[in-house]
């Protein structure tokens, strides 16, 4: 048993349901007690989804507990088959009902006989994998199921499309800015004359999965979901895949060069060259490269930040901050423990320390210790930042309704670089504000907010220093207060005067 207050990644069945409900005309049946079907609420509320979430719970109640499900699950499957005629029905238990150890595979086999739809059981261990791993696995399972079916029917071929084409794998519901990223990727491919063969699972049809191998190569924008599918397709059909995330100017260029390589590997003559496209986009279309050169970005140089998120986003953002903006990353971390090795390798040399943990208090303690000027993290870090009065830009799931903006906010591609630069710039207190800090001035006459994490009361501020502290703008007051107190403690000073404040400032700047 462990005492838990917060989770970065949800339980396995959420991942399975996210994949199933992203496909068109796929219905999921949950074998679960009343109330476990809150996925429907998340999808409907967060994504502001207009359609009913295609997930139905086959309720596990006291009777089921006593006598087993008997015909209940099968009845629910066949009922949905008749009512909504889905192409596929995915059955999944939850953490709770998986302990019942009912033979769900048997239910699936029996329901398949009387259903027009295909029926499968999501094959996931609910106590060993999290939401992201389960999503990755379920997507692979569905793809494998339909490709095997096509092979049996003899309709499966690896006949390539006439012009270069790619599949985009891993865009799905409740993903962090996934819809915007997908649009941006499609635009990028279109610019390069590469056709999008299929996007899965979001908006994809399982009936068309058999055409996946027609693409020249696969793109996996986020390594959390889609990598298993891409590896399967590589193994089975020799389809190459790109797992470089096109986030930031450097990696987007790298991504395009890899595509060039793959495209050219299929062409015997008239090879493509995307270098001029990369240059044009970098120098003139994307504003981010110009931003890096601009006077604004100069103020970011050497600022210390903490980055935390899923492996893909945390690693990419760390590299962007360091390579493209000259920011100092004090700590880069991820909650994707299963991908620790990859993450460590990616951020090595880009940050002082790497943090791999699922425990938000450990993240909070690290941030408090490092005292960065800004945080780039999840909604959790945003709240940690609020408590410590450190600004935070949200760069990764777990998602919040704020991560489903109505406007266009991709993180990938060249438009993504602009969005990221904006978000980074706006997260810092900069320019004139910085100078105000330097001279301790300000025009904020509000009372000092004493709500800080330092609860020690062994220090007293005399009236003059209190007044001085009041003059400091609210957004940095907490930090100045903490720094001064830290200095006073080091020097063994108990009463803080204005002189001590200045001394503290001097000590810090040397």
């Amino acid at each position, binding site marked *: *048993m462990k005492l838990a207050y917060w989770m970065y990644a949800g339980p396995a069945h959420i991942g399975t349901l996210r994949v199933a409900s992203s496909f068109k005309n796929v219905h999921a049946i949950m074998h679960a007690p009343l109330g476990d079907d809150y996925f429907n609420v998340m999808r409907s509320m967060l994504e502001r989804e207009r359609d009913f979430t295609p997930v139905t719970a086959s309720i596990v109640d006291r009777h089921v507990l006593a006598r087993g499900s008997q015909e209940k699950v099968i009845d629910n499957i066949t009922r949905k088959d008749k009512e909504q005629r889905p192409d596929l029905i995915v059955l999944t238990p939850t953490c709770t009902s998986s302990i019942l150890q009912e033979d769900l595979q048997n239910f699936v086999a029996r329901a398949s006989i009387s259903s027009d739809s295909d029926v499968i059981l999501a094959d996931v261990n609910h106590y060993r994998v999290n939401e992201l791993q389960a999503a990755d696995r379920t997507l692979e399972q569905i793809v494998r199921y339909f490709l095997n079916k096509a092979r049996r029917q003899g309709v499966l071929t690896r006949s390539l499309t006439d012009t270069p084409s790619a599949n985009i794998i891993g865009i799905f519901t409740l993903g962090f800015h996934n819809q915007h990223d997908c649009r941006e990727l499609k635009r990028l491919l279109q610019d390069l004359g590469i056709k999008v063969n299929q996007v899965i699972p979001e908006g994809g049809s399982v009936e068309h999965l058999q055409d996946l191998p027609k693409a020249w190569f696969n793109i996996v924008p986020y390594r959390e979901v889609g990598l298993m599918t891409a590896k399967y397709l590589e193994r089975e059909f020799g389809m190459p895949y790109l797992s470089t995330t096109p986030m930031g100017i450097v990696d987007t260029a790298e991504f395009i060069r890899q595509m060039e390589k793959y495209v050219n590997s299929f062409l015997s003559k008239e090879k493509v060259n995307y270098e001029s496209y990369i240059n044009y986009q970098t120098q003139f279309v994307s504003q981010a490269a110009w931003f890096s050169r601009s006077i604004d970005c100069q103020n970011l140089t050497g600022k210390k930040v903490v980055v935390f998120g899923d492996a893909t986003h945390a690693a990419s953002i760390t590299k962007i901050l360091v390579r493209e903006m000259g920011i100092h990353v004090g700590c880069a971390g991820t909650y994707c423990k299963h991908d620790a090795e990859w993450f460590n390798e990616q951020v090595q040399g880009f940050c002082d320390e790497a943090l791999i943990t699922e425990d938000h208090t450990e993240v909070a303690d690290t941030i408090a210790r490092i005292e960065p000027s800004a945080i780039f993290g999840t909604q959790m870090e945003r709240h940690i930042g609020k408590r410590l009065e450190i600004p935070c830009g949200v760069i990764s799931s777990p998602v919040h309704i704020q991560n489903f903006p109505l406007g266009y906010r991709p993180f990938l591609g060249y438009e993504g670089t602009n969005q990221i630069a904006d978000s980074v710039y706006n997260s810092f207190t900069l320019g004139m504000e910085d100078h105000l800090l330097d001279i301790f001035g300000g025009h904020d006459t509000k009372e000092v907010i004493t709500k800080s994490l330092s609860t020690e009361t062994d220090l007293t501020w005399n009236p003059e220093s209190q007044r001085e502290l009041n003059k400091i703008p609210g957004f940095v007051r907490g930090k100045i207060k903490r720094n001064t107190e830290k200095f006073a403690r080091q020097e063994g000073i108990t009463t803080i005067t204005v002189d001590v404040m200045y001394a503290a400032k001097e000590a810090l700047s040397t």
Partner: protein
Amino acid sequence: MNTFEILTFECETGNYHTFCPISCVAWLYQKIEDSFFLVIGTKTCGYFLQNALGVMIFAEPRYAMAELEEGDISAQLNDHEELKRLCLHIKKDRNPSVIVWIGTCTTEIIKMDLEGIAPKVETEIGIPIVVARANGLDYAFTQGEDTVLAAITHRCPEYKSWVDEEDGTEKKVLSVYSERNRDETFKSPNHPPLVLFGSVPSTVASQLDSELKRQSIRVSGWLPAQRYTELPSLGEEVYVCGVNPFLSRTATTLMRRRKCKLIGAPFPIGPDGTRAWIEKICSVFGIKPQGLEERETQIWNNLKDYLDLLRGKSVFFMGDNLLEVSLARFLIRCGMIVYEIGIPYMDKRYQAAELSLLQDTCKKMHIPMPRIVEKPDNYNQIQRMRELQPDLAITGMAHANPLEARGINTKWSVEFTFAQIHGFTNAKDVLELVTRPLRRNNSLEHLGWTNLLQPTII
């Protein structure tokens, strides 16, 4: 027109969406200020509290998950030792007056003996431990509160009254609550002690207290009280009355285990319900209500603007929080037509007075009795709604946006769980919620954006 008279209950498949009963933690930990709630369940339970309910656990929370891991499920670890370890941790960090263990579906399935372990841990750590089985196998949404209150009922002190031999006056052991509320003008009420049960915000509790005080009735305590240490005394002479329609288990426990006398009244929701509730309490105590009718009329007059919006409009309750019958009765009295009252569970005895008020209201307003559907089937309900085209659907969160996209106005049922809806004063708040979608649409009407679906997906 004989449908006026007959109460019929249908029961559907139970394929409906509602919140898990552990969600009661979200409001109970705030209500009982010195408590700590420990939900013993899986990641699925924790993610629900964190995500779907939007209750994020940030600074210094007074509730947590005891997350069951593979070792717990396969019984490799000792439940007693594990729970003791976590509770000691909680004691060190928060030192609450009580720890409430919320059992979940998982603890039911693995048959964890929470009731057996609790007394041991209680002695070991020196903090009372209350066990409530708020699981989704047996209960829906708000019934979680019912399981917690029923469990706390056992912890209320025993009510005793005796004649002091020295000064010859009658002495009583009452709750701290009534001691504090005792004022000079209202020293010794001439009625037996009255305890109200149901979790409502403290302002609502004082509003109801003062409504009863107008009738010279003093409330001796609330279950739950603001603090665990202030629980009311219970016993044979104590009368109890509920304010929430989903507390049938608590009512039964109060009657059977604590020998209290239950006042079966309609619930104090809407001016009509509040009046009926007060009248019923008065009648049990043999008190003639003073100025109650005037008070009700005055409230109705204040609601006039809302009533003009609602009159003749129709509403469909999909069923979620068990407040449905009381709300439907109030809305019918406001002049609305109710097509269907979906409700997860219907205790016909505990809700008897409410159901009979519903019948009377329908008769009075000359409309047929709505159908009451227990354990509804959401899919079938949506088909029925397609036929009926109600002006408003009161629904769980999962269906709100899709219904809105199909041109049906919705209001989240959970809002009625969290808003202040009890008593005369808050009648306005209920109608404020109910009319909001109608008012919103009045201001958007000329735009003609009623159907926001692509033709193929309808």
